[in-house]
């Protein structure tokens, strides 16, 4: 019986560690068999391109999940940030208009709204760390506030984003889409931060045990807040690129993106209970897997509602696997 249990545990470990690769491989083979167009370099690039904006947000989410937090406001902060950009275009101020049409001016404005994303993260972080509120309640509430503010700004109309941004988000360097380049850069930077800086290692430590971390002299609250700020910043970048890809921000923009982002992180092996997870390969493989599922289902002409069900099943199983060894309270 003992031996059996050991075998089971080993199998489980294998599944949690490498299951995502197996799943990806199986899916790629299945979809390739189902549609000849699937396994072309064009389509694989397309998958990367579709995955990139959300992938950037997943990187931020990993930071928050590592300290056993969660941010379900990320979709709505994407909406607010993008709406602000669209809104600036509708003000009709000549100077502002000129800026939006100028590369450097646009860069500055984008920089400012990304900072705004950081401020949103700061608010979430402070409420969670200093005021000891449950992360999912905090971010549910701030999310609804952001959505309200965004709708107020746009008057619930769809707004166009600056053409320069559209060109940026849909452009290519050589044959590689720019968004993919941005994604890679973000992954490289933040993977480095996580692995090779004191901050990153402290995050892992806090996730493993906040009490021990405090005893070891780590500034737990400050690091926690920074994690939420990172999540806010990267969520904003992802949102901006996603809006740029579409070319406009409608009232429904960003709704439900938090599902994709969180489930991608968890699929990539990041634990909801903190202290475990990675950006490369974890987050990257997670978002690619989800995008592949969506892409492949579309190629098989599946009903779009199946996507929702598939998304739900994916997140359910990813989290069920993550939870099996959890020994805390049931709630």
């Amino acid at each position, binding site marked *: 019986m003992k031996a059996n249990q050991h075998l089971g545990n080993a199998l489980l470990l294998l599944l949690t560690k490498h299951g995502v690769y197996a799943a990806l491989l199986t899916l790629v083979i299945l979809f390739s068999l189902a549609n000849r167009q699937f396994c072309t370099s064009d389509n694989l690039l397309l998958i990367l391109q579709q995955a990139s904006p959300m992938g950037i947000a997943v990187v931020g989410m990993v930071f928050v999940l590592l300290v056993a937090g969660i941010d379900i406001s990320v979709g709505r902060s994407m909406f607010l940030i993008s709406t602000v950009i669209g809104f600036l275009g509708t003000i009709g101020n000549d100077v502002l208009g000129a800026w939006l049409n100028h590369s450097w001016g646009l860069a500055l404005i984008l920089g400012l709204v990304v900072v705004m994303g950081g401020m949103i993260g700061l608010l979430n972080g402070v409420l969670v760390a200093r005021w000891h509120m449950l992360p999912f309640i905090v971010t549910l509430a701030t999310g609804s506030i952001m959505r309200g503010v965004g709708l107020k700004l746009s008057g619930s109309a769809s707004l166009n984003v600056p053409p320069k941004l559209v060109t940026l988000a849909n452009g290519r360097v050589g044959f590689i889409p720019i968004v993919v380049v941005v994604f890679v850069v973000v992954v490289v930077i933040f993977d480095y931060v996580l692995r090779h800086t004191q901050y990153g290692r402290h995050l892992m430590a806090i996730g493993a045990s906040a009490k021990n971390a405090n005893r070891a002299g780590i500034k737990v609250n400050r690091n926690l807040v920074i994690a939420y700020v990172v999540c806010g910043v990267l969520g904003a970048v992802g949102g901006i690129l996603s809006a740029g890809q579409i070319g406009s921000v409608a009232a429904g923009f960003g709704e439900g993106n938090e599902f994709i982002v969180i489930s991608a992180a968890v699929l990539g092996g990041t634990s909801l209970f903190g202290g475990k997870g990675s950006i490369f390969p974890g987050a990257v493989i997670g978002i690619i897997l989800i995008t592949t599922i969506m892409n492949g289902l579309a190629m098989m002409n599946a009903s779009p509602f199946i996507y929702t069900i598939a998304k739900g099943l994916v997140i359910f199983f990813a*989290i069920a696997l993550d939870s099996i060894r959890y020994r805390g309270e049931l709630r």
Partner: protein
Amino acid sequence: MRNPGENHERKVLWMLRDMPILPLLVGSFLLAIAFVPHFCTVYNLKNYLLQSADLLIISCGLTFVVLNGGIDFSVTSVLTLGSVLGAYIMALSPLAGSPALSIPVAILAMMAVGLLVGLVNGLSVTRLRMPSFVATLATQLIVLGLAVQFASLVSDTASIAGLPEAFFVLGGEGRYFFVPILIAFSVWLFSHWLLARTIFGKRVYAIGVNPKASFISGVPVKKTIVQLMIISGLFAGIASIVATARNQVGMPSLGDKMFLTTIASVIVGGTSTSGGFGGVGKTLLGVLFITLLNNAMNLLGVGWEVIMIVLGALIVVSAAGEYLLNHRQGRV
């Protein structure tokens, strides 16, 4: 305590701490009567109660889960799937011809949907040890997907119309406006009875405060958690009956936007998000307050986006207030 002069102050404080929403509700109500045009008309007060009905039912269910320190995101999807399934049975299925048969079957089916989803949630939490906020996030997606997929399979248009007239009574059609109010009130009364009088209720509170001590004291922790998740789902199923009857169609978008108001009702009402404190009495006040806010702002022509902002801010303020009060009391 030591100083008799403090006694009165302590009583007020006790009341404010225990039911901070009550003076707010009364105050807002008076403000609304005084300043909101057409608020205090029979037509509007009737609307007000009708609008609270389904919210109260669904919030009561959610209260049980929040009392355990958890959350149930899937209630809105249960509302949706129930609505679509019930409407299908009443309007499109082979039973559709005989309302006398199809209506009860539909009602049972809608409740069964809630029961089933609640069971899955409960088992996910207890057996698979998933935290409820992600387990239900996932079931929310799955159930919503099922609802929309089902609707698109059985009907060309997304919403399913053509329900039997008799069913609308449950939604308060015409002179039967008291029916949904009565249903909601019975559900509330039942919840209150469960929590205040039965052993199940006592166990819910005990587990919410200290699951470990409850377990050692012989409380069947897992069973109780499954039960309260089932209640949450079941009540969402009942709410789905009332909401469907009220809108008179089966809608795959019925619950989409409802979660915020639901959780806001529970939290603003004063049930603690960390579990063990609160109850449906508070939720009732929360529901009345949130609906009042919605209704009054609507009458004033304030946009829904402003209401969203206000609801979000209220949740933050309630949770922060709870933290402040408890921190000083040394609870936490």
